[in-house]
């Protein structure tokens, strides 16, 4: 079997897996027929519009809905006094309209439901809420008295770790750098605002939800509404991006289901763009202290990475920004830790490459500063510090090709021609510079189920039907899973029909942590292999035991990002001229969609470096930069041609599909590469982002 299997795979690989297949839903998306969550309008559909708390902290003392209910077409105003009682979810940010408590500005205190969108909106404006306001605190400082060391950071990582004797190694090191980097909160802002349409049909709840995973949504709704998951269907067929902010359920699906239950009508809720920052999560701000002790040859004796961040009073979420320093470089003493304070702020959550995007900005800028201090080439510095084993765990790496990425990137970028001296190149009024940074992202995988059925092979349609509740949030999951199935079944791509995006399909984990393709693909691969081997007509599989049986390896994708920037000597405006990424992320399953993910991640990293900034209003509470006019995501004019490449990486210790996950690594090294290039251009370090003109302008 093994020999036959290899032959088959090799033969079909060229044809299907790895090929740049077009997106299956592509025609529907470019012609506008792909329907997203708010684009299902059942007969008799009503509209919900939420009411956000207008105080930064306190409690609701009364809701006067008389004016709202007097509007023609008003159906209901739900508040903590009359909304359906809900079971307690794992995520307390979903326990909406259950108590009068207001933990932060923007927390939802009511839901207006009307016959039309216009009526619901006017109703929401007419609802009069009175509050008992309490003092608030939204200011993160590195000496805040409320700071504590959490047991765990996001992802289940231990909060604090130490290997070797950091203090002794740092004290004895001939070169010591003690650097602090600061990042503002950041917002996901997927183009499709969070939205849901809910319909109760008898005792069955149908929800069209903009979510990264319909299975977790149905499980959460089951807990909250006291239903069996079989009584719930959650559909997430097309999702307009999420970047972590739709990873688990968010308020719209809960509000829509409550509103529909209360009014006995289908209810559609789409969040206003300005309210997203308050209720869907954000990347938490971080203050990161890097202490690096280096020897004369550039090898590290000590690496300290200590992160200070905030969470809300609703739940603890700790941005795991120190975690990449447990992976990247060997040092005799490594100390990594997190401190967090619960403030009266919206609850932070996942944003693309949580932990790594923030942490690698600080670590990779610090490495650049070490290179400058020691007069070493920044690539050579990194090459000298690549560890044999994962420093924190001591585990062997399943594969590690950072060095190849750095060298291949250097070759493509023309790095050898670089003059290392900062602040010496000009093009008229523009100062020019280049920079490099490494990327990393862990390989994550979760158990999944999937089924495959052999259809009648009369040539009239697809020969196989694959079913799995994967979610295509724009990654091309539908397409790549069909490629995996076709490859295993030894058939052309169009012989495979695939259904994803509904909780009625075999259960599967969410699209997050760059784990979707590995998790769903493993199940699809297994189902198709078993069907082929058994010659049966239908197979359903579960990969739980396979995932649990994985060997003990440190599994990470790596990459290198190179940037060339110009900085205007008079205005301080920074523009990226070139951006190149080279990645080692296991087997690349679809060259076309993979490239889109890499350049997409790098574009978001460009935004983090140059344009994206948010702040909390210390007087009023809540975020200041609420919408796309205040929070600047990159536009066409900000983004140059971006080059993304990958090296052939064969890692025998991954899932059977062989991919490491590519959704997040693109963002990780980009901010530091750009920041390092700005230093090379101007000769000045800023140690904060974004590098807006007011910061960069010469003083």
């Amino acid at each position, binding site marked *: 079997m093994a020999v036959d299997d290899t032959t088959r795979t090799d033969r079909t690989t060229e044809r299907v897996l790895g090929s740049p297949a077009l997106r299956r839903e592509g025609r529907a998306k470019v012609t506008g027929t792909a329907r997203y969550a708010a684009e299902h309008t059942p007969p008799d559909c009503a509209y919900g519009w939420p009411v956000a708390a207008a105080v930064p902290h306190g409690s609701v003392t009364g809701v006067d809905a008389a004016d709202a209910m007097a509007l023609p077409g008003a159906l209901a105003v739900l508040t903590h006094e009359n909304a359906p009682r809900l079971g307690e979810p794992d995520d307390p940010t979903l326990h909406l309209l259950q108590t009068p408590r207001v933990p932060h500005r923007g927390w939802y205190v009511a839901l207006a439901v009307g016959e039309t969108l216009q009526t619901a909106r006017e109703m929401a404006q007419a609802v009069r809420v009175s509050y008992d306001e309490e003092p608030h605190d939204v200011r993160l400082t590195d000496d805040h008295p409320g700071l504590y060391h959490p047991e765990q950071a996001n992802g289940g990582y231990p909060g604090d770790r130490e290997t070797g004797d950091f203090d002794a190694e740092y004290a004895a090191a001939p070169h010591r750098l003690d650097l602090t980097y600061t990042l503002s909160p950041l917002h996901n802002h997927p183009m499709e*605002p969070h939205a849901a349409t809910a319909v109760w049909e008898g005792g069955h709840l149908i929800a069209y939800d903009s979510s990264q995973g319909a299975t977790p949504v149905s499980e959460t709704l089951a807990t909250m509404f006291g239903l069996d998951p079989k009584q719930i269907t959650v559909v997430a067929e097309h999702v307009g991006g999420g970047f972590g902010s739709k990873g688990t359920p968010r308020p719209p699906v809960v509000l829509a289901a409550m509103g529909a239950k209360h009014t006995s009508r289908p209810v559609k809720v789409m969040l206003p*763009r300005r309210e997203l920052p308050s209720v869907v999560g954000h990347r938490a701000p971080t203050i990161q202290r890097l202490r690096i002790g280096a020897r004369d040859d550039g090898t590290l004796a000590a690496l300290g990475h200590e992160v200070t961040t905030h969470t809300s009073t609703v739940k603890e979420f700790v941005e795991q920004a120190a975690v990449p320093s447990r992976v990247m470089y060997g040092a005799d003493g490594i100390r990594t830790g997190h401190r967090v304070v619960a403030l009266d702020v919206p609850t932070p959550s996942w944003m693309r490459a949580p932990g790594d995007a923030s942490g690698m900005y600080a670590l990779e800028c610090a490495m650049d500063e070490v290179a400058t201090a020691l007069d070493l080439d920044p690539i050579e510095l990194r090459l000298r510090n690549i560890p044999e084993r994962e420093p924190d765990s001591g585990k062997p790496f399943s594969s590690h090709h950072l060095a190849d990425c750095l060298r291949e990137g250097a070759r493509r970028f023309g790095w050898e021609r670089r003059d290392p001296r900062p602040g010496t190149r000009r093009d008229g009024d523009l100062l020019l510079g280049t920079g490099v940074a490494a990327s990393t992202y862990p390989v994550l995988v979760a158990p999944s189920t999937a089924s495959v059925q052999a259809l009648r092979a009369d040539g009239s349609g697809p020969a196989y039907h694959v079913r799995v509740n994967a979610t295509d949030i724009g990654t091309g999951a539908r397409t790549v899973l069909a490629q995996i199935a076709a490859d295993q079944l030894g058939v052309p791509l169009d012989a495979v029909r695939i259904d994803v995006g509904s909780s009625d399909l075999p259960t599967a984990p969410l699209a997050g942590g760059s784990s979707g393709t590995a998790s769903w693909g493993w199940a699809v691969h297994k189902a198709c292999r078993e069907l082929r081997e058994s010659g049966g007509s239908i197979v359903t599989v579960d990969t739980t035991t396979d995932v649990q049986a994985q060997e003990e390896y440190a599994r990470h994708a790596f990459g290198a990002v190179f940037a060339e920037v110009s900085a205007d000597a008079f205005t301080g405006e920074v523009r990226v001229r070139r951006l190149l990424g080279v990645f080692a992320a296991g087997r690349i399953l679809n060259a076309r969609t993979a490239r889109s993910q890499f350049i997409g991640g790098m574009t978001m990293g460009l935004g983090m470096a140059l344009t994206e900034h948010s702040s909390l209003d210390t007087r009023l509470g809540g975020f200041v930069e609420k919408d796309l006019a205040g929070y600047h995501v990159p536009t066409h004019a900000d983004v140059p041609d971006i080059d993304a490449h990958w090296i052939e990486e064969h890692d025998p210790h991954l899932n059977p599909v062989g991919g490491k996950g590519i959704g997040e690594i693109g963002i990780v090294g980009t901010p530091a590469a750009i920041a390092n290039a700005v230093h090379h251009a101007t000769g000045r370090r800023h140690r904060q982002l974004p590098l807006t003109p007011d910061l960069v302008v010469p003083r």
Partner: protein
Amino acid sequence: MIPQRTATSSTLTLHVNDTAHTVTVDHRATLLDVLREQLDLTGSKKGCDHGQCGACTVLLEGRRANSCLLLAVAHDGAHLTTVEGLGDEERPHPLQQAFHERDAFQCGYCTPGQIVSGVGMLCEAAEGHPSHATRREELQRATGAPAELDRDEIRERMSGNLCRCGAYPHIVEAIEDVREHVGGGTDHASRRTEEVTA
């Protein structure tokens, strides 16, 4: 006692993709909401509802417009082209096809707005309208002569349409494909738009 509200809606006709729709619209309703909620033309997307993202872009009398900023009641008799009017799954518009082949999108939510904006932009360039990125010597051309579209011009002219998935480089390539393989620059896209808005 709230006084009786009168005249909160009007009946009017919108010509959308060559089809006349006579609808009664709430005076508070935007063109975008009427398209999406009343006419079930959900190709035009709501990304921000405030004219900040371009996902709702339609052609109004052949010109690009953010339909979320326009009140429907003020557009009796107007001619609109939405993404559904450019082509369909059987017969996509060349730019729709180019977006698909170049993988010029991921989640697809900004895509209809990008495509409609791209078609409108090509027409504007064909008519000789300059942009912020137009070079000084280009501005000396005879009035009405088509504008040369290099990548900086395309980026500048498309910057009203945000894409959070970061498909910008592929969008530029898709637009270049249409510009290049349709002889005479934008003629084809321009003609096509006239057809569907006529």
